[in-house]
């Protein structure tokens, strides 16, 4: 009980700080009642025409490097371009296992998954992609995932028998540039093949579960050679993910698109400057993605964008960690993060200080798309107009 109280105090403190930082910067209003949060059009939403884009950061960024005064220089676009148009949730708590694959899978299923983070397994509970496709009878091309390679190949499809074959189309951009054994297929692109920062070794993934690179490239109307040529102009795996995401938007305009960024997790190498670079890039990519959404007639004014880290990182002050480097302590800072939500159904320039959990994402995304997520344990986030 005492432990829970201490955690709650820690989480609330993070929330309070974020609220003050953002309010001071943007003059955002604090949402107090449900009715005050809802834009008028939310009540008349035609969910069948809605699209949802989810961006998760696989590798949390701390307040010190983002929303705190000393960190704001790292996220100018989130602060100046996105938050004024968004509802900002200051207290998103992840009570699950703090490993990126298992945590992202938990976000996607709305249930804290408990499998080994490094195992090549599917989530046990149905994912939001499956709820969406089953309820709305949509093809696989209407739900996509763009993710790093370190285990995320199974993120789109659960092992739940009732949802067999209803998963998302998963693209692991790095694998488009690599041979089946993971070695580079093109010279000079090694820097784009790095998206596992926690271990020099990975469990071999079952390639049968993955679309062949040639097929993905063909779907995106790209040759692998052209893809490699463009990739050579990019600096990081997340920029590669953005490039692929934009192609998916252009070619398929899916209703549900989930992008997991991972550059920030280079923090595990202990190089603070590389971690800051990752935050800068994530900031740029999120703004660029929103601009892409708003410039595409298929998406403009009918797309809700949700951005959240899967969890945080360790505090400098916890002796069990090493500051920004890892997320191993399970302390309040490593579990408490934030969410930016924006789009036609979401009130602008608003701060939500209420505690929500990261597993609330899936039932809420499902609801935004007009479906239920009956096996999810998370709750609907009312402030999203639900």
């Amino acid at each position, binding site marked *: 009980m005492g*432990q829970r109280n201490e955690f709650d105090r820690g989480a609330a403190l993070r929330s309070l700080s974020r609220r003050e930082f953002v309010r001071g910067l943007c003059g955002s209003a604090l949402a107090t009642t449900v009715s005050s949060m809802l834009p008028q059009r939310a009540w008349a939403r035609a969910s069948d025409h809605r699209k949802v884009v989810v961006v998760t950061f696989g590798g949390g960024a701390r307040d010190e490097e983002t929303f705190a005064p000393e960190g704001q220089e790292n996220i100018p676009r989130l602060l100046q371009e996105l938050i004024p148009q968004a509802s900002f949730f200051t207290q998103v708590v992840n009570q699950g296992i703090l490993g990126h694959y298992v945590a992202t899978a938990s976000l996607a299923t709305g249930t804290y998954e408990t499998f080994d983070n490094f195992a090549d397994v599917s989530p046990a509970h149905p994912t939001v992609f499956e709820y969406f496709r089953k309820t709305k009878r949509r093809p696989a091309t209407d739900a996509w995932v763009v993710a790093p390679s370190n285990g995320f190949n199974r993120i789109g499809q659960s092992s739940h028998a009732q949802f067999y074959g209803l998963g998302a189309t998963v693209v692991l951009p790095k694998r488009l540039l690599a041979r089946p054994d993971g070695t580079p297929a093109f010279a000079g692109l090694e820097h784009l093949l790095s998206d596992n920062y926690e271990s020099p*070794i990975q469990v071999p993934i079952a390639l049968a579960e993955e679309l062949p690179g040639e097929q993905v490239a063909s779907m995106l109307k790209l040759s692998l050679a052209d893809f490699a040529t463009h990739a050579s102009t990019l600096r990081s795996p997340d920029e590669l993910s953005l490039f692929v995401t934009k192609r998916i938007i252009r070619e398929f305009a899916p209703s549900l698109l989930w992008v997991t960024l991972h550059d920030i997790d280079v923090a595990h190498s202990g190089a603070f400057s590389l971690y800051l670079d990752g935050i800068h890039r994530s900031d740029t990519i999120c703004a660029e993605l929103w601009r892409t959404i708003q410039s595409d007639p298929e998406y403009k004014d009918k797309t809700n964008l949700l951005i959240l880290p899967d969890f945080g990182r360790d505090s400098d002050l916890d002796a069990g960690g090493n500051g920004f480097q890892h997320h191993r302590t399970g302390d309040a800072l490593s579990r408490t993060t934030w969410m930016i939500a924006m789009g036609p159904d979401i009130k602008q320039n608003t701060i939500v200080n209420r505690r929500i959990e990261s597993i609330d994402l899936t039932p809420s995304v499902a609801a935004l798309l007009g479906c239920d997520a009956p096996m999810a344990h998370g709750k609907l986030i009312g402030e999203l107009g639900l």
Partner: protein
Amino acid sequence: MNTAYSTELTAAQQRLLESLPVPLAAVMMQQIERAGRLFPAERRELDYTLESLALPRQQGVEKAVQMFVALRLSPELGRMDWRSDATGFVDKMTAELWSTGQIGAFREAAKLLAPSATRAEQSAQVSKPRFVAIVLDKRLSVVGKTPVLFRKLRSYGTFFAHVNDENGAGTLASWLAARANAHPEPYTHWQISGDIWKEPVSAPVVSLSYIGMLAERQRLLAFFNTVRNTEASQGPEGLQRVLQHLTPEEIDMGAIKDPVVRTFALDTFTQGSGTQLYATTFVQWTIREALRRAQPESVLAWFTPRCEATSMDWRISHPDREQAPDGPGSLIDAEMGAYLSYVNLMRLPDAERASLLVWHEGYGQALLIGTDMPRGVESNSAITLQRLLALAA
């Protein structure tokens, strides 16, 4: 029951462990197994913790024990013999505590137990206040005007804008030697560098460097490469298990003569993340671990440029090839490294008497934190490095 258990555990220790809840007993067993490779400060902590766990216990210790009692382990884990493989048991237990949501309770219990160990150190004699001196190499620089340095540390000490020293390395070497000669206890004085220590070190100083251990690092990266290309590597956790049992001899670390330091150096590479790849990470992590484990009186640390970022896969596949240096990035890394070193220094017993100096060799600026140093103050007067060291001595 393995040999280590039967030969190293005294009858009293054995009785004590059997009386403890299994999660705590396994953790203590793991530490006892490592006792031969611990620094004196760690051994004192271990002895004191074991002593405090014997009946009758103080209230705080008893509360911690009861929190360990309340942890629920699976029948599968219950069937494992923690006595014969404490490390393997703790490894599996940790995974289970995470997946069952009990890791927070475990951590809280451990934190409650920690003060008893801290008291062991407080009772130990620290003959001279601790002093950590950190140098940021002149190659850690940006193009253009001088950046604002030591931002995270300025509120804790005095900033000196003009620090002159024609022979900084010599001044610092003399400073460390003087402290070591004044109190020549083993493992009490350290020098850590991202480059290599060119001058021979006086006996009581532990000396470790990133470039100095180039061959060892390359052998370790080659070892990683071999393991990951082994059919039955079993992924990251399999690698972790292999590393837990790796010995310094397997990657030929015989150049380090002291067995405790040799194991410490191996731990730096097998338990630290990025220490094998980046000089800045190596220096920061080694300072952290030296402070935490050996609790030294003096540390001289030199941050030098790390190489440019590249994929871990590539580095492991090409252990003999280093990328070009990244001076600006390394400056940011080193500044954070200095700040984390201060945080770690403040965790030690007698922290209120401790000092920390960080000096940028190229920009000629420094920040000094110490008992008598004003906080959040800036001095524009010219001062020598030698004088700065004396200010906090």
